[in-house]
């Protein structure tokens, strides 16, 4: 499958470019022209307390969401004509369980999660599925986040790339509107202590 990669965190993008060819996919650059599938994220949004998040950071958050939304709209539009396709929205774990300092990625991820679900409802009759990949906390996020993750470490790019390859594979043909959390169990835990994202440098 020809896969467009849109505004993914650098580590994940590198991981995907390594892993997708082995799984029979061909990753493309920016833009959705010619793509059969799209993996869209919001880059790496910064950490700040919600009451302190500045106008510029808020605008950046909205712009990142907007960019992912229209990449998905364009891919959907193309694939509804061609028939069949895959949308994967990559979100941060904060969109499922919030943490202090994580408002931007929580808001952006929550937004795209619902976009994925509505797209899944509307596009599936034409063979286009849409799903959410919750990309576990990974570098360059603070290593201290591992304290709140049962698996005890941050995610490696390969962990996330493998899950993404699955969502793009024929095996996932009936997976639609799903949320695949590759987060080491972050969502189901409550770590003691302060949020590493709230820590001041």
């Amino acid at each position, binding site marked *: 499958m020809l896969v467009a990669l849109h505004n993914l965190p650098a580590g994940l993008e590198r991981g995907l470019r390594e892993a997708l060819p082995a799984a029979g996919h061909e990753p493309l650059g920016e833009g959705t022209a010619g793509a059969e599938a799209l993996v869209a994220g919001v880059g790496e949004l910064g950490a700040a*307390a*919600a*009451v302190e*998040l500045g*106008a510029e950071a*808020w605008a950046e958050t*909205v712009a990142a*969401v*907007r960019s992912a*939304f*229209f990449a998905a*709209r364009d891919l*959907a*539009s193309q694939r*509804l004509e061609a028939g069949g396709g895959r949308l994967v929205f990559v979100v941060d774990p*904060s*969109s499922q369980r*919030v*943490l*202090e300092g*994580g*408002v931007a990625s*929580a*808001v*952006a*991820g*929550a*937004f*795209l*999660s*619902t*976009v994925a*679900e*509505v*797209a*899944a*409802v*509307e*596009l599936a009759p034409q063979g286009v599925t849409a799903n959410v990949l919750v990309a576990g906390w990974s570098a360059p996020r603070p290593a201290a986040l591992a304290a709140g993750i049962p698996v005890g470490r941050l995610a490696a790019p390969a962990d996330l790339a493998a899950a993404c390859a699955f969502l793009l594979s024929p095996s996932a043909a009936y997976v639609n*509107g799903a949320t695949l959390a590759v987060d080491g169990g972050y969502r189901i835990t409550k770590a003691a202590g302060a949020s590493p994202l*709230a820590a001041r440098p």
Partner: protein
Amino acid sequence: MARVALVTGAARERGIGRGIARRLAADGYALAINDVAAAAEGEALRSELEAAGVRAGFYSADVADRAAVEAMFDAVERELGPVVAVCSNAGVGAWSPFAKTPEELFDRVVAVNLSGAFNVGQVGAQRMLARGEGGRIVFVSSVHVEMPFAEMAVYGATKQAIRALTETLAIELGGAGITVNQVGPGWVKSKLNDASPSLRTVADERATMAKIPLGRPAEPAEIGAAVSYLCSADAAYVNGAFLRVDGGFVVGKY
């Protein structure tokens, strides 16, 4: 002097915001009524509340405009007093097939529903923090937080984003005695829903209402009652919650 509540998007007749404003006024709050337009309706509501002995003011401001929101809080504080309860309700609805979503639709809905909620919630929170006396923030989100609806990707996404904003503010502000919660209306007899494709004909409306276990839409006053509770002393320990007021719609009837 009465404590002050601010409700955004509160002027329109048959709007959820008006139902919230009336109820908070009945609870004893002085009322700051905000809306971006509908000045005549806003002034009419102000007169109605004042006739009932409630101190009230109408404040025209676009919640998507940060400077306008700051100026509105300044004016409310000057004229009515510090705002101890903020209800971010202003919102617009829009329908489009996902694959054909116009950029204009995205920008308009996100500006009001999401950036508006962020502006009102953040400015309200900053001022509550500065005073150090706690407070209440209630966002009006939607059942869209719990289930997707076709042709409403942008609207639903803004409501889900408000869920994340509510939860993050709740954990960040709890230590300052500020609770942050969201109310999730389902079908409401409101102007926003008049444009819904699901209510286009009498048959459409009947089919839509048949999906609601209670068999009817909510009155704006019923959403007001939920906001009233979340602002009350009874709800002092309710924080980061989603209070769904939908007649059981999301729980589901096939």
